[in-house]
């Protein structure tokens, strides 16, 4: 029983990170048909934003020393700000470009952010000590679960509920959903393109900030490459979930998290190093079964 509980919490907390990442990617894809590959570098940027720029081996924690109730909004704000700035400076100019051009541009933007971090912080991973007491275990029904896992899962659920409420209950939320489904039609009904796109980038960047906080606490390391694996899995999740479907992205994120944790537990020892190969086989199987994704939007995708 306790083992089951432990696996469940592992799966949910890994899935949470993927779900938040997938949501960040799906939000922007929805309104702009852009797969933003710079998203992983937003995550790394948010982690390094907690440190004072230096090439030293030892990290000089700066913003990271703020109390949690200030640090969380500041990092979320930095993520949102970076994302909005990249929209205004880069993606706005490519609004009518084809999706391949936008995607390659996002790669380029990712490299720029990556190299800026490299310049100011060096490529060496640095140990940081963010909220280390969160890795202490708590006992839940006999199972010893790291407190951070519990917080990650609760935080993800709160974020998802808040987002659902915003998207369902507010006029602006309805406009964003409409824009994600059929952008041109939404504009013909008076929905302001720039406002909706900027909001999507803002929320997406704030989600990158969330992931940064979780990863930094979990790993205790700041590494300029730390966003990339999350970004890749999150991207795969948006594809399996059905590009353009927000809830599909979230569910697929949790699904991939669950599958990889289960494989980690149940694969024979000698097969474990190849866990990711098994995960991606499952991804391929899922795409062969439903190429349009598990939760592809029903409406036609024809765009003017």
């Amino acid at each position, binding site marked *: 029983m306790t083992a089951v509980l432990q696996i469940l919490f592992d799966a949910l907390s890994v899935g949470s990170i993927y779900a938040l990442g997938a949501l960040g990617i799906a939000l922007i894809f929805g309104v702009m048909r852009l797969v933003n590959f710079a998203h992983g570098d937003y995550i790394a940027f948010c982690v390094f934003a907690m440190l004072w720029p230096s090439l030293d081996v030892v990290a000089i924690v700066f913003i990271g020393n703020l109390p949690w109730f200030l640090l969380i909004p500041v990092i979320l704000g930095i993520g949102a700000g970076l994302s909005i700035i990249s929209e205004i400076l880069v993606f706005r100019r490519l609004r009518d470009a084809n999706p391949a051009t936008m995607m390659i541009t996002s790669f380029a933007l990712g490299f720029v952010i990556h190299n800026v971090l490299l310049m100011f912080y060096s490529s060496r991973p640095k140990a940081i000590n963010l909220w280390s007491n969160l890795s202490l275990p708590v006992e839940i029904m006999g199972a010893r679960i790291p407190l951070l896992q519990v917080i990650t899962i609760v935080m993800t659920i709160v974020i998802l509920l808040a987002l659902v409420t915003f998207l369902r209950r507010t*006029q602006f939320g*309805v*406009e964003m*959903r*409409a824009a994600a*489904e*059929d952008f*041109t*039609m*939404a*504009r*013909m*009904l*008076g*929905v*302001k*393109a720039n406002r909706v796109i900027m909001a999507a980038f803002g929320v997406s960047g704030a989600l990158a900030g969330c992931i940064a906080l979780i990863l930094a606490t979990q790993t205790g390391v700041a590494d300029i490459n730390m966003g990339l694996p999350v970004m890749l899995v999150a991207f795969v999740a948006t594809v399996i979930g059905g590009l353009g479907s927000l809830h599909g992205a979230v569910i697929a994120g949790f699904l991939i998290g669950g599958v990889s944790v289960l494989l980690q537990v149940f694969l024979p020892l000698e097969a474990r190093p190849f866990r990711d190969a098994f995960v991606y086989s499952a991804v391929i199987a899922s795409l062969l079964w439903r190429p349009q994704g598990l939760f592809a*939007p*029903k*409406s*036609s995708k*024809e765009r*003017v």
Partner: protein
Amino acid sequence: MLLSVENITVRYGRLTALRNFSLTMEQGETLFVTGPNGAGKSTLLKSIAGVVAPVTGTIHFHEQDVGGQPPEGIARLGLSMVPEGRHVFGSLTIEENLILGAGMRRDKARMAENLASVYDLFPVLSERKDSHAGVLSGGQQQMLVIGRALMTEPQLIAIDEPSLGLAPKIIDQVYDTLTRLRDERGLSLLIVEQSTTRAVMAGGRMVMLRSGELVLEGDARELSKGDALNAAYFGFEEH
């Protein structure tokens, strides 16, 4: 003058979809734009709605130059577009689809009033207001998009092929509604139809396009009396 399109030319790459086309509309008028497939009818509506940009020519709405305005800007001036294929938001509920049209007014009381009047016009929408719009039948979707256009409080509704894919009985209902809106609210209508039949039935002014150019203009009923209509439509030479 409500709408004035002057000498617009629209190109998609090397293909010219509209050539030197002009059109005017008065307040309260119903204008049919007809013509065969590929004549440039939808392109005309898209340029008026700001979705495609003409390479030359000007478009004025209420004496205001709308060239280069984004679609949302033009919608805010009171021109509501109902594009071909209806474009309901299938993942939104029916009520959310309608509310979307009222977003730019930011006036809750007026929005509630307009919502009530749309439900009054289409009771079937009110019965199913919380279901997803994707489950509606074609005719109901057509009613929904007309209702949604009305929520923007437009002076002009531009509607592309409202009869497409609908049963004749449903088409009658759609046109009954449109003519009622014209008569009771003084709404101006710009209706694109492939066939001239509806234009002749509903009456009013008609322009005909073929291969991106104006080929015929006049009162629909007058034009239907001779052979001119067919000749222009199919492009027969005069003998």
